[in-house]
């Protein structure tokens, strides 16, 4: 069959295959799907084109993120069964098709087609793509799983850094009347159509690089000098395997779900209002000492820390352990939120640095969780378990903005507030982090009754079940 190269048995690496080819394969996928966080670039253009509201256009992104969580949760076991190459190929087809159907929707002024294309079809591609390289990376890097998954998930953060300026430049190329340097300039609908077609095509080609490069290690492979016994001897690291179906029956899964939910909710609290927040913190009467361009620079600074935190903290977790790493994210995070609320308004530098470290913990929380899952549930179906855990992300994506906007709406309008108006929301985030902190402290190794028999895990790996 023409597509037989996608089969798991055709992706088993020959002896000597460099494992350093796997991180770029994973990055090729995550850099492309990370575009999902750059949708604000053409938001105003779509509002004007469809003569619609910001809310109606924002629904496109919301559908995509909901579909990401749902498809990762529902299709996780399928991804584990068919292997990374078939999953990456499916992700590339869906992600690119999403752009093309979305482009058709913009060209024909049918907003529902954009919902269906970018939101539903692209969103499923997002979910499959996000989890597709995770278990493969963990199997290739049993000695450094945090580093390996940190690299891939850093790519998701990096994808937005690439897509934002690239989209602006492409829209300017397709629409000579659009000036990307002028915040009031709005691109035409036809330029967004062309942008979607271009991104869909380019992303498909880059993702194919990942498809053709990724391979799974041969059964029993381990890197030179790797001592599995030394890793298993670390506290909270198990050599046993737990299936995805059993994992969700364990308290450990739900404790980790709570940890991820709380960490993401708290991070979104800052991300959601970053630009108006810094201006409000340094407001004197009607005027803020922070100009809009400086506020935009603050948002860019946060995105750098969000991305760097994914790699740095996740890699660090290989040395200090997963639970201590989350103690840092949540415990130090609480202290930083208190500092932000109480002394953040005294110095711009203090405000910026504290917020940046909080955002690095937000990114780090995403990147460290696959390795935490590997430690607790083994490598057997870690990708599928990760997919189910990502529902915490979707839930936090709703809870975080609801909490912060709920408190701020009661005080007035963001962009016209002062530092004190943010305190109730920030102290609530301290409470959210405290909940996650307790959940993390309660995590213990998974009970033996949930472990899989080695014969079943071997059969699954070989595609026999």
């Amino acid at each position, binding site marked *: 069959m023409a597509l037989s190269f996608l089969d798991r048995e055709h992706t088993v690496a020959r*002896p*000597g*295959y*460099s494992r350093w080819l796997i991180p770029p394969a994973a990055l090729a996928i995550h850099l492309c799907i990370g575009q999902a966080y750059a949708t604000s670039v053409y938001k105003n253009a779509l509002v004007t084109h469809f003569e619609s509201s910001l809310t109606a256009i924002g629904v496109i992104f919301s559908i995509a993120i909901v579909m990401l969580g749902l498809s990762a949760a529902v299709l996780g076991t399928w991804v584990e069964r068919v292997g990374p190459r078939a999953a990456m190929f499916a992700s590339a087809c869906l992600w690119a098709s999403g752009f093309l159907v979305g482009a058709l929707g913009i060209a024909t002024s049918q907003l529902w087609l954009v919902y269906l294309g970018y939101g539903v079809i692209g969103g499923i591609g997002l979910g499959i793509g996000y989890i597709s390289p995770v278990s493969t990376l963990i199997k290739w890097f049993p000695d450094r799983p945090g580093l390996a998954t940190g690299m891939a998930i850093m790519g998701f953060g990096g994808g937005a*850094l*690439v897509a934002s300026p690239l989209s602006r430049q492409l829209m300017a190329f397709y629409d000579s009347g659009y000036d990307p340097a002028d915040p009031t300039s709005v691109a035409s609908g036809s330029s967004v159509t062309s942008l979607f077609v271009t991104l869909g095509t380019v992303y498909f080609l880059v993702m194919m690089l990942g498809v053709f490069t990724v391979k799974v290690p041969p059964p029993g492979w381990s890197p030179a000098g790797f001592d599995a016994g030394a890793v298993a001897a670390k506290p909270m690291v198990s050599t046993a395997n737990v299936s995805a179906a059993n994992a969700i029956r364990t308290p450990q899964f739900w404790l980790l779900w709570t940890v991820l939910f709380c960490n993401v909710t708290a991070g979104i609290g800052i991300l959601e209002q970053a630009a108006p927040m810094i201006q409000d913190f340094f407001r004197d009467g009607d005027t803020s000492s922070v100009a809009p361009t400086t506020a935009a*620079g603050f948002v860019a600074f946060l995105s750098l820390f969000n991305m760097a935190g994914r790699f740095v903290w996740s890699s660090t977790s290989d040395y200090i352990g997963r639970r201590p790493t989350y103690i840092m994210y949540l415990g130090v995070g609480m202290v930083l939120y208190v500092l932000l609320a109480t002394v953040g308004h005294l110095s711009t530098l203090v405000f*910026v640095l504290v917020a940046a470290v909080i955002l690095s913990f937000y990114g780090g929380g995403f990147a460290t969780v696959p390795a935490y899952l590997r430690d607790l549930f083994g490598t057997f179906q870690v990708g599928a378990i990760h997919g189910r855990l990502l529902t915490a992300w979707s839930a936090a994506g709703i809870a975080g903005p609801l909490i912060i906007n709920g408190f701020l709406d009661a005080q007035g309008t963001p962009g016209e507030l002062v530092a004190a108006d943010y305190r109730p929301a920030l102290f609530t985030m301290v409470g959210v982090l405290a909940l996650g902190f307790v959940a993390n402290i309660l995590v213990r190794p998974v009970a033996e009754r949930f472990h899989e028999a080695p014969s079943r895990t071997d059969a699954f790996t070989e595609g026999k079940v």
Partner: protein
Amino acid sequence: MPEQTTEQPAPEPTANQVPRLIVTWLVVTAPLAYGLFQTVKGVVPLFAE
């Protein structure tokens, strides 16, 4: 029933992998470097005041 033999696949030649490593890493790091450069340019106003 024919006897089943376990064939050991030929090892991956190391020399062939070097260009592949360079190309794959370039494809992902070049756009990332572009994105980082553009973002750092955007950060400048934050520290220019």
